[in-house]
């Protein structure tokens, strides 16, 4: 279900606001219809020696702002594709909708001498809806242009022109992607005196910017040369940290004649509130239902819980986005009538109920997702793609994700957690940090009993308590699915082959309460290895740390340990009668500033039993790049310890 939100959000983020019908701006000559016969083709020998698959030879972006509600974006990109692995770069995807119109796309293919092979034609472009299968109707679409060739190296030139009908969201400038060399890149912005543009450089070298002004027009320009490839490294917050780029926003904007300002978060919040006001009227039926539900209830939490349950039972998430509808919610009556809505409509509907019930609640704009960059908090601008509801209850907030039928009451969910959101209050917008998902929240404990017989066959009984991200992962696997699916899930996700699945119980996940518990009993022939009479019992094969970490020494970026966790495993192994422990690993403890690991092994010979306790915690921390080696050796040590074995042998 969360996927719905993800996919939808990806698209929503592309929405660009603003008013209609301003004539085309006067700007530099438009894209020529015919491709030039030649393209400047660099010497690719050195690039190939460097191991590059493609390079950006030249990237030029120009933005001509006409007034508060219109601008034209022109991009020209010269790419050199060096081998098979670079082919994908020859695909250009342009998103468009009613606020963002593609005026022209052209492209051409050049051979290694820079000679024109052919131009992009209609067949090379496909046009399709950008909406996900969960959307009923959205006006976002994609034009995708692809140029391919089989003789390497070859060159591609793409040129396109986009008209922005409104400046609610001015696309930032990202001349470089991961793992690519950019020979040169430029950004050129022209604005009239009447429009002021906010600019924020990130990771840009000094002196890249040259500003001039003339004729009541301000000109800002940047030039970058020889950008070395940037690798994507684990535990970072993506390109916003590493790749040079420029963020842009209009100081003032206008969308469908709603005027707004980005001079502060407060102002942007005011605009959002105004845009969505007067849409909270509930009908008689809902009101009387809420009245009866609220009867006899006291306290904000109790009442909020009942309202959330009412929401989950009566609505579902369906996305409809048309024009301003990307920003403006459908009225509460829409959800009443149809029982569905997108994140704005469902949050607004819930908000309306709280308002009617006399409980304060605030919509909070969110940049949803687990892998995107954080909000740039000192740069008020359109950075959001989702909205949730926050209900103040004394000192704390109760967080409600209104698009889910699955999540428990008050559960913010991983993709909304630990980030700034913009709370929409009566006084305007206010940045607020959502709850942190760290090792105190994300915990899991496994209680496992293993019985091993002389043939090495094992029967395993485990009961698991999960919270936070562990809980959420299982919630999506278990909730609303029949028992046969639960069993399939276990069979397909269990680290070893299951022979017989005797019992599986995940019924606790139906209750929508966290932490959740599930338990199972299985038999397996893949846990224990054999050599004649000896049996090898792995210390921990069932809950290993599944993480790939890069090589030591080449880390360049700081490390952000974000979704940290605690795991506790208690394992009791029963060995067959007549067997003795031939070798047993020693207990160990590793303690580092960013994590701890302990392994305790205690044999109880008189009962033929071995007790193992394993605990692993990673702390939410920021580390410098130099600390990467310590982190990676910690991970390796833990993995090594998890691979240890106990050897038992038959008494002669």
């Amino acid at each position: 279900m969360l996927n719905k939100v993800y996919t939808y959000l990806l698209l929503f983020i592309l929405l660009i606001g603003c008013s209609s019908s301003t004539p085309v701006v006067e700007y530099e000559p438009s894209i020529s219809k015919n491709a030039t016969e030649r393209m400047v083709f660099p010497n690719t020998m050195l690039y190939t020696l460097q191991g590059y698959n493609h390079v950006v030879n030249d990237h030029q972006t120009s933005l001509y702002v006409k007034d508060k509600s219109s601008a034209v974006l022109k991009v020209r990109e010269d790419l050199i594709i060096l081998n098979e692995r670079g082919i994908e770069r020859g695909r250009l995807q342009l998103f468009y909708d009613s606020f963002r119109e593609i005026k022209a796309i052209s492209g051409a293919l050049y051979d290694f001498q820079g000679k024109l092979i052919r131009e992009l034609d209609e067949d090379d472009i496909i046009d399709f809806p950008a909406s996900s299968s969960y959307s009923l109707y959205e006006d976002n679409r994609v034009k995708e242009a692809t140029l391919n060739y089989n003789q390497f190296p070859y060159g591609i030139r793409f040129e396109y022109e986009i008209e922005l009908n409104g400046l609610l969201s001015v696309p930032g400038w990202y001349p470089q992607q991961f793992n690519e060399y950019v020979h040169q890149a430029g950004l050129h912005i022209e604005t009239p005196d009447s429009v002021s543009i906010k600019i924020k450089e990130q990771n840009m070298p000094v002196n890249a910017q040259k500003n001039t002004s003339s004729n009541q027009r301000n000109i800002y320009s940047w030039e970058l040369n020889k950008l070395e490839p940037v690798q994507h490294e684990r535990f970072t917050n993506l390109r916003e940290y590493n790749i040079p780029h420029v963020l842009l926003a209009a100081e003032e904007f206008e969308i469908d004649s709603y005027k707004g300002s980005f001079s502060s978060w407060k102002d942007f919040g005011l605009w959002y509130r105004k845009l969505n006001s007067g849409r909270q009227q509930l009908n008689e039926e809902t009101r009387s239902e809420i009245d009866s539900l609220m009867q006899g209830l006291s306290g904000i939490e109790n009442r909020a819980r009942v309202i959330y349950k009412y929401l989950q039972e009566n609505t579902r998430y369906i996305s409809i986005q048309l024009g301003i509808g990307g920003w403006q919610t459908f009225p509460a009556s829409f959800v009443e009538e149809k029982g569905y809505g997108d994140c704005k409509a469902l949050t607004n509907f819930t908000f309306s109920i709280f308002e009617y019930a006399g409980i304060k609640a605030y919509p909070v704009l969110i940049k949803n997702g687990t892998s995107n960059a954080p909000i740039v908090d000192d740069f008020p601008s359109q950075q959001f793609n989702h909205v949730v509801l926050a209900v103040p209850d004394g000192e704390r907030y109760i967080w409600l994700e209104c698009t889910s039928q699955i999540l428990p009451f008050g559960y913010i969910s991983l993709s909304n957690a630990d980030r700034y959101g913009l709370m929409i209050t009566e006084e305007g917008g206010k940045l607020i940090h959502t709850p942190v998902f760290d090792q105190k929240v994300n915990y899991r404990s496994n209680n496992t009993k293993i019985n091993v017989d002389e043939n090495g066959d094992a029967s395993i009984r485990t009961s698991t308590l999960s919270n936070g991200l562990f809980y959420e992962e299982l919630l999506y696997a278990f909730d609303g699915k029949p028992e046969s699916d639960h069993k399939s899930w276990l069979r397909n996700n269990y680290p070893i082959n299951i022979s017989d699945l005797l019992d599986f119980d995940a019924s606790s996940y139906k209750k929508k309460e966290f932490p959740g518990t599930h338990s199972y009993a299985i038999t397996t022939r893949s846990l224990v290895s054999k050599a004649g009479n000896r049996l090898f019992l792995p210390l921990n094969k069932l809950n290993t740390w599944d993480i790939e970490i890069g090589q030591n020494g080449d880390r360049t970026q700081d490390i952000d340990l974000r979704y940290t966790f605690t795991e506790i495993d208690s394992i009791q192994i029963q060995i067959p009668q007549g067997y003795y422990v031939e070798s047993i690993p020693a207990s160990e403890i590793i303690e580092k500033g960013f994590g701890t690991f302990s392994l305790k092994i205690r044999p109880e010979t008189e009962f033929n039993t071995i007790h193992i306790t394993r605990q692993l915690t990673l702390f939410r921390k920021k580390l410098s790049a130099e600390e990467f080696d310590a982190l990676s050796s910690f991970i390796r040590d833990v993995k090594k310890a998890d691979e240890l074995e106990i050897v038992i042998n038959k008494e002669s």
Partner: protein
Amino acid sequence: MKKYSFLVAVCMLGWSNVNAQVSEFGDVSMDELTMERYEADTSAAAVVLFESGRMTFDRWFRPEMEYHVRIKILDESAFDHATIQVRYNPEIEQGIAKIKGATYNLGEQGEMVTSKLNKKDIFKEDYIGNVKTTKFTLPSLSAGSVIEYSYVKKYGWTSNLPDWVVQRDIPVIWSELNMRERKEHTFKTSFAGAHPFAIQDSEPNKGNVDHRWVAKDVPGIKREPFINSLDNYRSRILFQTESIGAAGDRPVDLLLTWGRIYTGLKELYSQAEKREKEKFYKEEAAKLIGGLSTDEEKMAAIFDYVSKTYKWNGAHNIITYGDFKKVRQKKEGDSVDINFILMRMLKSAGIGATPVVISTRAHGLINKDAPFIDQFNSVIILARADGKEFFLDASMGPRSYKMLPEKDINGAGMEIHPLLMKWVDISLSEPTKDVYMVEASVTPDAIVSGKVSASMTGYFAQDFRVDMNKAEDHKQHLRKDLFDGFAGVVIDELEVKDIEDYSKPMVYTSEFSNLRGDNIKVSGDFIYMNPMLFMSDLENPFKESERTLPVNFVNTFSTRYIANIKIPEGYEVDELPKPKAFSLPDKAATFRRVVSTKDGMVTVLFDQRLNKTDFPIEEYEQLRGLFREIVESNNERVVFKKVREIANEE
């Protein structure tokens, strides 16, 4: 014509079927509303209470389907069934009309609450190209709702009517199709799938025939690993127009036979070949085959060139008019474009080549009882060189001419030979096989070094080569492929042969050191070692204990692993795994593993073979068991023990 349309109207009025299951729109019973689970399958998240189709034809014999379905939503995970998308191409059909929809819920007083689909909530969207989508979702949905919708779908003129498919992912209690077959417009029907049609009525009615088919209690069907296409297993009715003729006229025989389809395609293809001059192909071919002597070599060179030069655009197709100018310019085309270019070049080089129309795996098996042209969806080439036959498909990028892409392996195809029609069994020209030879030694610290030689053919070679060519460097690929799970291993030498020549066996030799693994360990006086090294991590592909569909592998295969492991200095063998051998009946799949010791060496011989590709459900448990034995055996260890040197003890 006037007279004729009058006839249709009269027929419509006089035609009604009474039955217990299908009810009028809105006529929802309390039983349906209060139903809490479907007893025949208590895991079902939703169940189709009934679905009904009524097929009629307009005066131009264009089919029109009145479709009506009622579904009980038992759980929120089945909400997707309430969102409906119908795609259509307005150039050839009219899409859906007269859409009606409603959701029924149980009210607080136990009454039925109806929420109707609003016309405004029906959306039309441009999909890709000319294709449009009509979309709607039903309102006020919750677990327990009954949903219902109906529409009329108008098809363009078509000689073969849409299949009536009764089996889907959720169970269907009642699926009914009614159709009037007029004497002016006759059909042939055939059935596919395992679930029977409980009612098959045909009643003469004033010279026409009224048909009624009902399938009851159809279980849901679920995808399982190792099947070709799920559609092969869905129960359905297929139709084919037999003849058409206005009342009183002599009917036009439209019945397609495989013979007619063959003749049509043969004509189309021969026209296509005439469209472009042979000169171009001859020149192109000449550049490639200079100096080559045998036809097979020439064929290989041409195939290699076409498969490396032309990029597939992702579309399968069987129709071509032979205009490849643009394809040649762009070096990109669909399956028929690329394979026709291949065929023409082969023929120009004097190699016999004919098109073979096929159905790809995802498109379903060909049902020979139902001769429809759209059972085919792609074209491959059958070449005859040096007295041998080769099936070729150059559309999937660089590959061996001996190995068709997996997607093309799907039973029989029809050869469009200029002289006669022939069904041919699509086959591969090379077995899929790999052999690993390992020489290794172990230090007293349980660190392994040695040499591995691998030789692969068939798909093993194909896949390995493609991946190795894609990888940044060869060693990196080997680290991921062979040494996966051995993080610290050092690849000292790597010799790879014929990496670009896809038709040769894939052979490499690698020297490695510093290999440590969680199953190679020292403990006290013992070294425990899994002698299977990089073959020890095999997984059983069959995880589920139950199976509902037969198992289908694309190809047979065999794997051999032979290792000579030097006993560490100062150690002796303490224990060896016992020999194991298993075989399924008729040697459909076999496995053998022997570990022995001789001359200071431990020798491992592992041999696994899959000798047939199709296993019925009854053989599933055995098949799964065989893989389990393999996984288990590969997990066993050799134990080396330190030799006590008695002389030194004093």
